[in-house]
């Protein structure tokens, strides 16, 4: 049996969790999900469990923990440690999301087991043979893992979430959680949602690198993004120079995106940047250097100076809209 930790925020399940359920189902059809919440507030257990069942959860273990607030990683891990014992699961799987990785790392630390993050495939055995990402997926690593229970997260978008409706029988589980386990928990939320398009959800991203020359270079990118209903992205060089906020950084240590259009302007295409944008449906690059790496990863290229090309592009967009 495979146990899958469901990453949710106030009842909204992270779509990566559906990929994790699909991944686990391919290892063993007997998949059971775990939903941890703070007893009532913000979590509609029935609705969330129904979604997990859509992707193959035969049983949904519901763990309500008083004082959990939105999220308390160690408390969630305690519950999983107990569930691993009581269910005798062969593996504990989650999405490679901030919460998925965090909770599973706690479980591994508590039980002194290895934890393998960002997996593409797992072959259970002795040892388990696992293929995982290094360098944010720029390299694949094959490892032999020795453990009685596999603890692993699934590399984002490496498995396509496919529905397979199952019973999703609710089972309440009471975990022994101490005050100490709840010491680290969300105590507040700040910054109301800006209402603007965020990078992960944007259909169009107009992104700039060092080649934009400075913070003022981004005005035209904002205008083009605005005209296309998209948002602005950038490289690490740009955030390190303080030209743009880090929230706009795309790449290994920024946000990983998959928009319909990624327009890369004055970006060289370092592996760590491509790690964040290579799943874009269409990638267009504008660069003075025809040999820049980004040109090999683009669907369309323009060899030229952004200062000349981009105003023309904006004009053309406006002309064809009016």
């Amino acid at each position, binding site marked *: 049996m495979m146990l899958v930790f469901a990453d949710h925020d106030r009842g909204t399940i992270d779509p990566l969790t559906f990929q994790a359920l699909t991944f686990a189902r391919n290892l063993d059809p007997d998949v059971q999900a775990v939903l941890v919440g703070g007893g009532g507030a913000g979590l509609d257990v029935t609705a969330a469990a129904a979604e997990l069942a859509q992707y193959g959860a035969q049983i949904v273990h519901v763990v309500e923990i008083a004082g959990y607030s939105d999220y308390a990683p160690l408390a969630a891990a305690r519950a999983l440690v107990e569930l691993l014992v009581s269910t005798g699961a062969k593996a504990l799987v989650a999405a490679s999301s901030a919460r998925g990785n965090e909770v599973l790392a706690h479980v591994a630390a508590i039980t002194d087991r290895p934890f393998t993050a960002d997996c593409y495939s797992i072959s259970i055995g002795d040892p388990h043979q696992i293929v995982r990402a290094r360098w944010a997926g720029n390299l694949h690593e094959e490892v*032999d893992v020795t453990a009685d229970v596999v603890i692993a997260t699934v590399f984002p978008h490496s498995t396509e979430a496919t529905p397979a409706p199952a019973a999703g029988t609710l089972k309440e589980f009471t975990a022994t959680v101490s005050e100490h386990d709840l010491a680290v928990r969300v105590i*507040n939320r700040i910054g109301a949602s800006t209402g603007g398009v965020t990078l992960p959800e944007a259909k169009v991203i107009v992104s700039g690198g060092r080649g934009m020359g400075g913070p003022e270079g981004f005005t035209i990118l904002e205008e083009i993004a605005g005209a296309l209903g998209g948002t602005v992205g950038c490289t690490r060089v740009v955030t390190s120079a303080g030209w743009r906020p880090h929230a706009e950084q795309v790449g290994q240590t920024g946000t990983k995106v998959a928009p319909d259009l990624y327009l890369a302007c004055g970006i060289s295409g370092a592996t760590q940047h491509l790690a964040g944008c290579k799943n874009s449906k*269409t990638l267009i690059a504008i660069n003075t250097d025809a040999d820049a790496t980004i040109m090999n990863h683009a669907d369309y290229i323009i060899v030229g100076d952004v200062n000349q090309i981009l105003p023309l592009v904006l004009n053309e967009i406006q002309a064809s809209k009016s």
Partner: protein
Amino acid sequence: MEIAVCVKRVPLVGSAFMLTDDSMSIDTSRIGATLSPHEENAVEAAVRLVEAHGGSITLFSVGGADAEEQLREQLAIGADRAVLIDTEGVEIDSKATAALLAQAIKDDSTDFDLVILGSESADSGGYQTGIRIAHALGRPVVTNVKGLNIEANRATCERAVGSTREVYEVTLPAVITVLDGLNIPRYPSVPGRIKARKKPVDKVSITIPAQTTVRTTLRVPVSTSKGATDLGTGPDAAKALVEVLKQIGVMQ
């Protein structure tokens, strides 16, 4: 405030990954090395805390002797001393690395109020070292921190969720793992570099621990190279680009 920061030397890979003939590691013969970006933010955070509250910074690294290069760089930025746990080039899995770091932190003559790490290393991306160290030391841990403020023994930490931020509070001593974007790391100054030459880097030899995760091979995944269509140059290129935008349905 006494702060420990765990940092790792990683190869500075540019446009492509080259592997050694046995496909067991990255061919580093023609490339330089760097620190994982998150750890640059970790050191910067520590330097700012010591500037504000006093105290000292000790760096811990598990790696080969060449990691001294990265340690000296961070000593130049403001760390006071470093402990290099020398693996003589043997790669060590995350679980064993965390155990070595936790032991070195425990064995150190300084009692640390705070241990800061990156949330994940650039090369391995294990997402676990900080959490394991916290368990080994019996301390609370907040991960993925993008905003940090410490007053009177309490650390207030912010973490991104969508376009909002969650707030956590934790009492020191504690472990914190941070993300790129927490701050903008400074560059070492010339006087900083000169001082760094004299700062102590203690090398600790170890017997290589048993490992539960063993690499069998590395692969460069199939390239995403697409054979791009050239849209030309100048005004014609702009027209051609807008035609593409129409085709792919992003022009409303």
